[in-house]
């Protein structure tokens, strides 16, 4: 550890304790994150490459991955659209109960996933409050892919809203007025002046919602049909493989999901840096 610290050059600081705090942080991070993840990838390497490919490209695995990523994408996109509307309404307009609705947005963030899971399943079942309304229309939500989609929209909403909200709040009204005085129509103002400012935050929120939805388990497991090749999400497949004691399979699928998540995290970080730079320019 001492060697590692020496490599991290720093300007001498007045504040003491650099060595020990960095040491403790690195140790803790290693224990909690690096070592476990290393164990995962190590276990994956125990598999031969062919076996790894075989597991990951088996019909059932592929379908589960497609489902998890595909529905997560759809849900994040939905949250992008509706999240933007919600943010616009909350920041720009005033109406009775606005504070309450502002607080409501954090509920999916604070509510345990299992609670959300049973609540949504019950709600959209054929005899549920909403499911009962949709059943005569022939729309089945619980135990179908649509149900998974609903659950993923639920848990992803706060990410878009809370990421865009500060940007919109800080947005300087002067620019809008300038545009208006220059003769821009309202729509043009929105499109050319306001929207570009929001784009980095929107994309960040989208990526966060997407990343969260891909790995989601608790809220989906109750409402999904869990039928292989139809409505089985990737995290569930990992658990099933574990219960069958097929550790190698579970690890392989997890490794694929993990790599995808890392890439997403990288994209989010890059987006955040891009948006910081843009904000810095102003």
């Amino acid at each position: 550890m001492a060697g590692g610290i020496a490599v991290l050059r720093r300007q001498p600081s007045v504040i003491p304790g650099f060595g020990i705090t960095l040491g403790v942080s690195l140790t803790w991070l290693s224990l909690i994150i690096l070592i476990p993840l290393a164990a995962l990838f190590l276990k994956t390497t125990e598999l031969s490459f062919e076996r790894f490919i075989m597991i990951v490209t088996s019909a059932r695995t592929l379908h589960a991955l497609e489902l998890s990523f595909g529905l997560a994408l759809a849900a994040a996109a939905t949250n992008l659209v509706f999240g933007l509307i919600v943010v616009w309404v909350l920041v720009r307009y005033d109406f009775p109960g606005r504070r309450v609705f502002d607080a409501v947005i954090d509920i999916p963030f604070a509510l345990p996933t299992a609670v959300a899971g049973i609540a949504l399943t019950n709600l959209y079942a054929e005899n549920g409050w909403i499911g009962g309304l949709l059943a005569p229309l022939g729309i089945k939500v619980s135990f179908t892919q649509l149900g998974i989609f609903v659950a993923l929209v639920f848990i992803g909403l706060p990410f878009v809203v809370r990421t865009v909200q500060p940007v919109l709040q800080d947005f300087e009204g002067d620019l809008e007025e300038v545009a208006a005085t220059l003769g821009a129509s309202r729509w043009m103002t929105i499109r050319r002046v306001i929207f570009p400012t929001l784009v980095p935050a929107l994309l960040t929120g989208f990526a966060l919602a997407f990343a969260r939805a891909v790995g989601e388990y608790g809220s989906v497991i109750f409402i999904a049909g869990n039928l292989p090749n139809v409505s089985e999400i990737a995290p569930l497949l990992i658990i099933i493989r574990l219960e069958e004691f097929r550790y190698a399979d579970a690890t392989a699928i997890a490794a694929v999901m993990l790599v995808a998540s890392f890439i997403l995290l990288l994209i989010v970080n890059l987006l955040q840096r891009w948006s910081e730079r843009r904000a810095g320019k102003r």
Partner: protein
Amino acid sequence: MKRILYGLVLSAVFGACAHAADVALLNVSYDPTRELHAALSKAFSSQYKTPDGKSVEIKSSHGGSGKQARSVIDGLAADIVTLALAYDVDAIADRGLLSQDWQKRLPENSAPYTSTIVFLVRKGNPKGIKDWADLAKPGVKVITPNPKTSGGARWNYLAAWGYALKQPGGTPDKAKAFVKSIYANVPVLDTGARGSTVTFVERNVGDVLITWENEAFLSIKEFGRDKFDIVVPSVSILAEPSVAVVDKVVDKKGTRAAATAYLNFIYSKQGQEISAENFYRPRDPEVARKYEAQFPKVSLFTIDEVFGGWRKTQETHFADGGVFDSIYQN
């Protein structure tokens, strides 16, 4: 808020200590037995006291029988195992956790109750399921659990196989083809019998559920006669769920007396009555006579007479690379 948190934690710790006076046993059981063991352990705890006057609390864990056996082997500290079939207990014995002669230690080869395999169908039996042959028909969706993890699933498989063998001109090859066509109709393999029940009953998947007799009756009791019907096939297998004390664990914890007492309790008149009330066929002749009307008459064969016992069967059919693996790509 922090103060409240401290207070809760302290009371939690004290609460935990207060229970330390009781003896706690862990019963690792198979999937559908939640209600059975809840009733049995309640009755047992209210009557039994250890020689030094302590009361006994029985905690239980439920899941697919094969999976539970693996968990015990992997370190789940069970005092008692009450599993779906003898082989799963043998697997634990093979690892040295309990003695190899476990089956002789209790009456009836350590199987205090029996059951069999029947079909649960939607009310009115819209697909007209009457016997095993109907399960192989195209367009029929069959729900059965995964034989790799579930005990009931293996009994289901063997019952179907046995049926095919008993048909005129039945050969092992024909039986294999028959069982394969049934599994072609299976949309999802849950890890345990209860999981399959949930899929069939709650998620409304499938036309017919192959399940334990006790599970079928329980579903009707829970959900009403107006939702499901039971169809009894022409022939089925005699399923003998096995129970045993896990020597290594009870000797270390010093709970052998209590654990053995619980298993003996299942064989007692009261235990047999509770079993029958939960739709398990009791061994005790008197209790069996009393509950005779409740259980349908089925022509039953045993695993020994048709398959040569569990060890051989597990090796041939359910081990990695066995017959099941060649039938069903999971």
